[in-house]
């Protein structure tokens, strides 16, 4: 493993700890406004200063890690599961199933600019309406009750394209692994297709997806912040880093600290997951290690 991987892993660990123990780390209530103390510079009381409403920037950055990780972990997990299943089916069954999925469906989704589709979906869709179409009114309310406000919409918007990358990589892997001797042996022993796919092929195909997932985390942290910056993300008062930057944009010329800290938080988190992804890729691909 290269040095950058360890740096990335350490930063990611700090961000994850920050998100997990946010109530213990935050020094102030993130929603409490103190209008007499607007735009205070960093001090012993407010480590990162205060914003336009007098809220503590440090505490909001800490809670922002929670929002950011909540969205990115959910999006990456959901996209990976969907992608793995669809990619496996395409690669394993081949024939017209593969031609339809990899020749048409994957191409259609890859042809759409990802962020634009996410913006369009976040701006257009009524998530309750979509769920009610599929599982009825009662089911829609029950499912939406499980998510914090805006999270399900974000999931839909970012997963709509997110799964394709995983599906493509998985398809390629399954195409390769299904020709291995142990798969042929399992077939000869009379194992069912499902058993071969789930217990023999999938576990042996999943390695490159780990790289994809860590790079995907970096991409999703950015996308979440971008949507929040455009006012289409998790609604306030939840402190998203993107929303903090959007709010700071009008004042940063005089109070740069309001923009610097959430900006640095995004950059460091994205950098960390990129370092992890690059390090893992290098580790798993010996050809790259020598370069």
């Amino acid at each position, binding site marked *: 493993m290269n040095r950058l991987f360890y740096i990335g892993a350490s930063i990611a660990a700090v961000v994850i700890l920050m998100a997990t123990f946010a109530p213990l780390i935050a020094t102030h209530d993130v929603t409490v406004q103190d209008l007499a103390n607007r735009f205070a510079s960093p001090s012993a009381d407010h480590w990162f200063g205060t914003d336009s409403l007098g809220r503590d920037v440090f505490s909001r950055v800490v809670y922002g890690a929670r929002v950011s990780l909540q969205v990115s972990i959910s999006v990456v997990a959901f996209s990976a599961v969907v992608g793995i299943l669809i990619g496996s089916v395409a690669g394993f069954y081949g024939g017209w199933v593969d031609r339809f999925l990899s*020749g*048409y469906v994957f*191409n*259609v989704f890859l*042809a*759409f*600019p990802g*962020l*634009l589709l996410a*913006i*369009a*979906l976040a*701006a*257009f*869709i*009524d998530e309750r*309406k*979509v769920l009610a179409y599929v599982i009825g009114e009662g089911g829609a309310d029950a499912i939406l009750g499980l998510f914090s406000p805006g999270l399900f919409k974000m999931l839909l918007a970012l997963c709509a394209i997110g799964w394709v990358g995983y599906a493509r990589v998985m398809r390629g892997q399954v195409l390769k692994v299904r020709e291995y001797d142990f798969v042929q042996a399992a077939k000869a022993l009379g194992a069912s297709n499902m058993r071969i796919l789930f217990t023999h092929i999938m576990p042996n195909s999943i390695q490159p997806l780990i790289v994809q997932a860590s790079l995907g985390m*970096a991409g999703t942290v*950015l996308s979440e*912040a*971008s949507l929040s*910056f*455009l*006012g*289409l993300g998790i609604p306030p008062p939840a402190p998203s880093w*993107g929303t903090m*930057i*959007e709010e*700071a*944009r009008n004042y*940063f*010329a005089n109070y*740069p600290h309001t*923009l610097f800290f959430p*900006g640095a938080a*995004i*950059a460091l988190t*994205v*950098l960390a997951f*990129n*370092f992890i992804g*690059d390090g893992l890729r290098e580790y798993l691909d010996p050809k790259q290690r020598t*370069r």
Partner: protein
Amino acid sequence: MKYKLLNFVRQLALILLVIWTVVSLVTLLIELVPGTPATTILGETATAEQIANFNAKHGLDKPAFFISYGENGFTWNGLDNRYADYWGGLFQGDLGRSFRTDRPVLDMILERYPATIQLAVASMIVAIGIALPLGVLAGTNKNGLIDNAASFIALLGISLPTFVIGPFLVYIFAVKLGWFRPGGSLYPEDIILPAVTLGAALSAILTRMIRSSVIEELGEDYVRTARAKGLSERKVVYKHVLKNGLIPVVTILGLQLGVLLAGSIITEKIFSWQGLGLLLLEDGIAKRDYRLVQGCVLVISLTYIIANSLTDFVYRRLDPRIRLS
């Protein structure tokens, strides 16, 4: 010849199929909006008559699609529906009328489109200007100090979002130094800050690509021959290595043009650049003008698809190995 033609037809069919799906998705998106467009635009206090007039004017009184699914199962709605209307309009170059301003959506888009293209092209020039020297320096000094520094700068460029880079550029070059205006698109120099902001991520990707391309080519036999002939290292790199190493980079550039066009939305917002992205955000999404949003999403997506398909086509023509695979 027959094989070539067949391959071309297959590619074209796929592009048309993708375009058909994208248009269909965009037309059906309007069905997913919260409430109805009429109540969103006219407000909750609108009378039934006003709503009926609005719906009739924009064709919203027709069924959404050829078939619908309800309690009685599937119902055939006939050929006169919103989906068919949108396609009919598209073939005549009509993207409908804005729900808010009643102006043709296509006119509104065409007014803003050139600004977005200008920004995308300018940011590409910035990206090449940064990435070419940085990538070559990193590649020719593999694992050295310059290489590590260039790789770090590249990763930073990928990790820093445009909405962080943009405001900081404004802070330094507009507020502190006063060299540029903080936003707008009135004067020619207004394009510099948005182009650098949008081009930063692309320059990072290009630097990494050029670096690995240069490293790969430096190991080839023809480089040894050129060195054995006594050519200077500078000539070896710029005359021989770059010529071959830039083929994959050119492809990435083509593919990135589409990404830049789509990605300029945030940059346009930061710098109030009067392009398609700002039209989509401020006039479309913020004012809930769904017809305009539909048009903008469609035009940006189609540009992206066409740019990518053309790049793919040109690349196939350039590199026989890809053409034959």
